[in-house]
């Protein structure tokens, strides 16, 4: 049981971005990926979820032993993979509650519906944890939300869908310190033995609140260094160029 990324190569037309990436996330673990701009961090999250802009040229991604690279975007989601987007989309006219219901319903056998009372109870409890006003249930998904509200909304979806593996793509970007604390609290509440996290970030700051078990440095489409959470502090202090000075280890 794990999310296993094996020698993953992916490209957009004319440019290879992931160049043999290896990474294994076990349930219960929180992995952080840090790296300079353009190193392939966001590409990794989109490739894992099956975005059609990217072509996987070789490698495997096994979700609990099943290769998901041939699966459609929605099937990967239902298999247990969740992405908290860096730039969550607005869906005009679709209320947050309806969107969540539709997402949960998509996981049930055809023709079955979710228990509305239970659903609202759970949603309100989660929203309280994220200090979201109840009015967000009836507002259109992300429409007119501030940057911080959008990120909270992503975590609300994570909390409701309860995925096996969750990827957080720069969830800290655009958040002030209070919002960062709230979002982190939500994520930490979801940490469990049965769930793995991949936290993608530029800054060490987030990792003060969501403490990773393992930190990886992504550079030029490959993981060039892995270590404990002290590695993130070192990166903060010395920058990414310092990683160059180390002999590039075989990927973790």
């Amino acid at each position: 049981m794990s999310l296993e990324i094996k020698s993953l190569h992916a490209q957009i037309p004319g440019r290879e971005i992931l160049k043999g990436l290896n990474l294994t996330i076990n349930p219960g673990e929180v992995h952080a990926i840090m790296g300079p701009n353009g190193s392939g961090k966001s590409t990794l999250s989109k490739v894992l979820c099956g975005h059609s802009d990217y072509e996987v040229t070789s490698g495997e991604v096994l979700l609990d032993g099943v290769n998901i690279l041939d699966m459609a975007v929605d099937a990967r989601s239902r298999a247990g993979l969740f992405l908290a987007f860096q730039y969550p989309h607005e869906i005009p006219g679709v209320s947050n509650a309806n969107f969540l219901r539709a997402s949960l319903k998509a996981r049930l056998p055809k023709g079955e519906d979710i228990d509305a009372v239970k659903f609202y109870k759970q949603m309100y409890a989660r929203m309280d944890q994220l200090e979201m006003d109840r009015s967000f249930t009836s507002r259109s998904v992300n429409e007119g939300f501030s940057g911080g509200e959008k990120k909270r909304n992503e975590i609300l979806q994570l909390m409701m869908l309860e995925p096996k593996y969750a990827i957080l793509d720069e969830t800290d970007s655009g958040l002030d310190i209070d919002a960062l604390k709230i979002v982190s609290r939500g994520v930490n509440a979801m940490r469990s033995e049965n769930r793995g996290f991949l936290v993608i970030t530029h800054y060490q700051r987030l990792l003060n609140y969501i403490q990773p078990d393992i930190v990886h440095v992504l550079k030029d489409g490959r993981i060039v260094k892995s270590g404990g959470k002290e590695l993130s502090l070192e990166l903060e202090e010395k920058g990414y160029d310092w990683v160059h000075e180390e002999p590039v280890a075989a990927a973790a």
Partner: protein
Amino acid sequence: MVSAPDSTLEPVENDISDIKVDSVGDFTFPERNKFDSGFGITSKTVDYISDVKGDPDWIREFRHKALKVFQDKPMPTHWATKDLENIHFDEFRYYLSDGQKPKRSWDDVPEDVKKTFDRLGIPEQERKFLAGVEAQYDSEAAYSNIKAAVAEQGVIFVNSSEGLKEHSEIFKKWFGKVIPTGDNKFSALNSAVFSGGSFIYVPPGVKVKHPLQAYFRINSEQFGQFERTLIIADEGAEVMYMEGCTAPKFETATLHSAVVELVAMKGAKIQYVTVQNWSSNVFNLVTKRGIAMEDAEVRWIDCNIGSRLTMKYPGVIMKGKRARGEVISIALANSGQHQDTGAKMVHAADDTTSNVISKSISIGQGRSTYRGLVHIPKHLKGCKNNTECDALLINSNSHTDTYPAISVRGNQHSTQHEASVSQVSADQIFYLMQRGLTEAEAMSLSVNGFINDLVKEFPMEYSVELKRLIDLEMEGSVG
């Protein structure tokens, strides 16, 4: 049995023992027509229809005059799509019926016909929330009934044939007055061969609580359906009328060309709701217009899904002071379909107000066109118009055009026009699919979101139906 000299009148033999089902309305029963006008349209066709229906002389004459107008008028291809040239009038039959009078009870309706409407959920809806139902099968109503309590208030709800015979005084006063025969080629065609449709009269001050509904079903191939509806709400009266339509998908084209006239007397209110779901071989060319007298209101709610080509521009002539007109329309054009829809607002008195909200969705190769006309003459004052046209494109191949024509003379009026075009982007679909929705579900949710604010205006039962039709359309479009 009356016969048309140049047409086959033998009841059509058919081996189909069971119905064929693909989607909502895509099933058909064998034809059991006692009356069949045969292919093509000539003065003999018109006489055949008049004979079968036992028309009074003035109607027969009206039909013949209309036929002449229809024959003389060119196709409006100088402004409309060239696809109209693919309508071959000789390949349609203009009247088909089993020769039976509309039944008052579903138990008396012939089995096939009853099954048809059962499948479409009509008797169930009638029990649940309707004040009256008329169910038309090809050219004639198979069922027509109004709840006793509503009839006791003096409300008349019958088919057009019965209306013109039994209630000729009021029928004759308004018939063909809101939409003259020569309004366009297809209103002339309808005037020549019309059959079925509803005649409704609501007496002064009577407010019909529940909607009256008509359902128009085409069962036969190579056929044209030409219902004619006239609704009159007398002073201070209120009524809501809803129509639904389906046809099976045949190899050949089907023609549907209705004329609907509404008359709202002083202080009256008429709401006319359409949810059409034609199969993709139907030419749907419909003329709809209402007159609103002083302080009256005419409101069209029009949902166009399906058909090969729909051309429909519901209109309101605001004839009395402070009259209000409204058109709310939703059009969904999938690949192979062209929705050419819009609204006409004619301000003919002071302080009249009109509102047009049009939302179109184009998918794949689907094409949506909005044509609007707002006319406010110079001598009036205090007129207001608001027009909003929003288009949603799903897929880069989709096509949308907007042709608003707002002619406002004088400076004592207020008009407002807004138009927007938005895309359901690949990234939006990716976002929704990442939460587990299939591509069809993701598109459906996006479309439902786009029209959500309009759907809130609909009666609940109809918004549920509309959502279901959109889901089906989306499933079809991703294949």
